[in-house]
């Protein structure tokens, strides 16, 4: 019976993330529009878009291979699993141990790998541009991400997300320089990974600097819907990652009574909302970068994370 309950909780988590994903996207768009003094779409617009896309016929290039058709599902599934493994409203869920932070990052890598291949499949110039740039960005972001993992893991003594959350809740590490640096770096990496300004512009087409959109240029219909959903999920994932690592408060830890769970869910939604509001504000305050200035941007993230790790290595006090 307990097992059933645990399974239930796990599935609640899975569906929680996937349901709120478009909403989060909607919030960011809305805030952005507001900042631009536009009315902007309604909050639920992303749901409608997905629904619309799903009911359009899918147009597939004649020379597209099976990989092209499988990719969207794979990408979505992988991202979903990754997102489901990040503790959101409660720690110590049934499968939380099946993948630690490193594995989750790597899962996102799998999704990226598939997406890049899909971009190359039809054999267009744009797809190639997108894939190659995506892989470069990844190769810049991944070391930074790993150093962030190091930092957190060194502070908490584990790479197990839910354990980290537990520890941070039970014994708050307090304000630490390293953690601050790690947060800073993680935000940079998240921006890069989610194709946000200044690395990429999700709202643009036909621009030689686009990355993510260039890869999915050929997609349409339900496939495109899958990919869009996956992108939204990824954003949620990063939000909940930040939430879980740096403000885990309110999560249901040991006792998973209804009250605790409700508190957990509400607090989680609140955190996500805050982040979803903060992101566009940040985006609005900078301009899109040239492709070959990415190294500077992500190099900053890397430097911050490396500094954090070294501080930890030198003395565990920071």
């Amino acid at each position, binding site marked *: 019976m307990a097992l059933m309950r645990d399974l239930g909780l796990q599935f609640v988590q899975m569906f929680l993330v996937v349901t709120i994903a478009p909403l989060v996207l909607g919030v960011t768009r809305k805030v952005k529009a507001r900042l631009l003094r536009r009315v902007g779409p309604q909050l639920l617009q992303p749901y409608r878009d997905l629904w619309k896309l799903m009911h359009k016929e899918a*147009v597939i290039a*004649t020379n597209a291979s099976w990989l092209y058709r499988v990719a969207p599902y794979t990408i979505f599934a992988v991202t979903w*699993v990754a997102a489901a493994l990040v503790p959101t409203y409660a720690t110590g869920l049934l499968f939380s141990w099946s993948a630690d932070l490193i594995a989750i990052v790597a899962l996102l*890598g799998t999704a990226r790998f598939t997406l890049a291949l899909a971009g190359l499949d039809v054999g*267009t110039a744009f797809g190639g541009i997108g894939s190659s740039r995506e*892989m470069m960005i990844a190769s810049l972001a991944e070391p930074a991400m790993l*150093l962030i993992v*190091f930092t957190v893991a060194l502070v908490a003594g584990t790479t197990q997300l839910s354990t980290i959350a537990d520890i941070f809740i039970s014994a708050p590490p307090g304000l630490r320089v390293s953690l601050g640096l790690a947060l800073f770096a993680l935000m940079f990496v998240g921006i890069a990974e989610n194709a946000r300004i200044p690395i990429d512009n999700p709202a643009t087409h036909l621009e030689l600097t686009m990355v993510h959109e260039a890869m999915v240029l050929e997609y349409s219909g339900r496939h495109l819907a899958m990919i869009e959903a996956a992108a939204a999920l990824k954003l949620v994932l990063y939000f909940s990652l930040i939430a879980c690592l740096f403000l885990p408060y309110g999560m249901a830890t040991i006792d998973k009574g209804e009250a605790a769970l409700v508190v957990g869910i509400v607090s989680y939604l609140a955190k996500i909302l805050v982040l979803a509001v903060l992101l566009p504000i940040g985006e609005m305050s900078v301009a899109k970068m040239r492709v070959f200035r990415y190294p500077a941007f992500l190099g900053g993230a890397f430097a911050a994370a490396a500094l954090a790790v070294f501080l930890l290595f030198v003395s565990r006090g920071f």
Partner: protein
Amino acid sequence: MPSFAGLWCVAALLLVAIVAVAIGGSRRGTPIVYGASLAICVVALGAALSQLLAVAPDMTLALPLGVPGIGAHFRTDSLGAFFLVVVNFGGAMTSLYALGYGRHESSPLRVLPYYPAFLAAMNLVVFADDAFTFLLSWELMSLASWAIVVAHYDDSASLRAGYAYLLMASFGTLCLLLAFGLLAGPDGGYAFATIRAFPPTALTAALAVVLVVLGAGSKAGLVPLHVWLPLAHPAAPSHVSALLSGVMTKIGVYGFIRVVFDLIGDPTPWSALLVLALGGITAVLGVLYAVMQHDLKRLLAYSTVENIGIIFIGLGLSLAFKSNGMVLPAALALTAALLHVLNHSLFKSLLFLGAGAVQVGTNERNMEHLGGLIHRMPQTAAIFLIASVSVSALPPLNGFVSEWLTFQAILVSPQLPHWGLKFMIPAVGALLALSAAFAAACFVKAFGVSFLGRPRTPAAEQAIETDRFSLAAMYILAALCVLAGVLPGLVIDALAPVAKGLVGSVMPRQIGVPWLSIVPIAESRSSYNGLVILAFLICSGSLTAAVIHRFASGATRRSAMWDCGIPLVSPQTQYTSSSFAQPIRRVFGTVIFRVHETLDMPQPGDMRAGRFRIRVLDPAWRFVYGPLVRAVGSVAGNLNRLQFLTIRNYLTLVFSALILLLLMVAAWR
């Protein structure tokens, strides 16, 4: 008696080699030789497995051969058994593959006799239990593989490759020779047992470690000793390339482990520093270079360099922990390294076999001339895709597991007292992550450019799927890649005796863990479960698919590509491998490789084609080998004058030498 079974297999392989000389010319020769090798390798594999899994006691055997008074000693312990498994499994797979692939060999007599000899030599290296036998089989291995590398000597490239290869190989052997000289002492205790009995002094040990890094590293392909590898591995026929990259480099690793962990015993921390630094540099440089290759097999060879770097990072970590008495993390790091040895031997062999299939199907190795093969060679494409995911260290396949374990080992490092290591190890961790990311980029390019998109040449258009033997071999390897990815616990437990023997501790037993997940140190610390992940993926994927098909419209229309409404029909407009690599080349290559891009764009109205030339320099050539070659050349040139002197000058030489000696005698009085 597994060990003797193994030795009998070696003898049998040598016999096959001799027979191959006789029947190699005939048409039936090829299947017979490869069939025999396959059978023998399977037997040897069984023997090795039985010893590894049954944790049979070490077995020793001495024959009155080799250096007089010492004799030839043979021995198998769990370490040897593990590497025998790697060697013979690789050998079996390549032999199976070659049953089909070998038929395309233009001149079989140049390959057939050396192939079994090569396998035998690799087995023998692992069996060897004294310095002489070890080096003898080590050199035999180089020699046999050299013969195959230069098999197609009609193109001068393979001759140059063979030359560089043999030279580096004998350089390595000489280094090992010196190392063994140090360990054996002036009165020749060559038997490994003797060496173990008398542990060396700190200085001797340090010197020996350096020499072994040079010797074994040159065989394994550590930067900057790697230069021969990207030349030689592609030059050989693909099944042999698979052996060279997937297996022989591991023999280099074996040599390192055998000497440093087993014979020397307790290393100093700074030797760990050396190994870690080399490993990190090797990993990043290797894969960076791989990203910039256009030749498919060359790219794979460079990726081998990268993986060797990863393995050596694991070994360096293990050394670091061992030298500081932290046996448990040492066991973890060592297990990670050995696991990566196994994984790499699986997916790299698979990749080379796939490249061979492509070569047979299209007569092309240059990716710029490939493309769209996924339509003509669907099975090869699928298999190659699996291998690419594995080598890119992506879950849920096997490449990820070993790198994940390595990361776990890195995360233990803050507890090290040694300061140099404290700083070195996180840097190495970053390098490791960087190389993983590059690997992903590299294999997106490798798979995407050669298998996806549209065919760039008629050759690629008329590609044909490869034969069933080759496919069988590749399927088995692919299946194992997946299996090792989802059930790594089994392998880790199998490796326990090895770690026990070398660092005196083992990782926690994995079989008992619920849900078959793996736990490096403690459940609370970290754990990973490929099986559950895979199950999850399948569930969610199928769920998604079901939902989509339930609610979404299944209408599908095939039409010309869109490409922002300006479709460029010519396949030449696709992204090529060099254009794919361009961002990374710009960002990372300009500094390290002095990448030099020259674009010559004709004026408007000028009808000639524009030219874009890229020059990439391997720093190893620029800084190490170029100067060496020039130095030898100039010395030889200057000394050569002595060939053209006159008798009187020569007499003068004799006279002055005589006077010099006489003066010495006079002074000595």
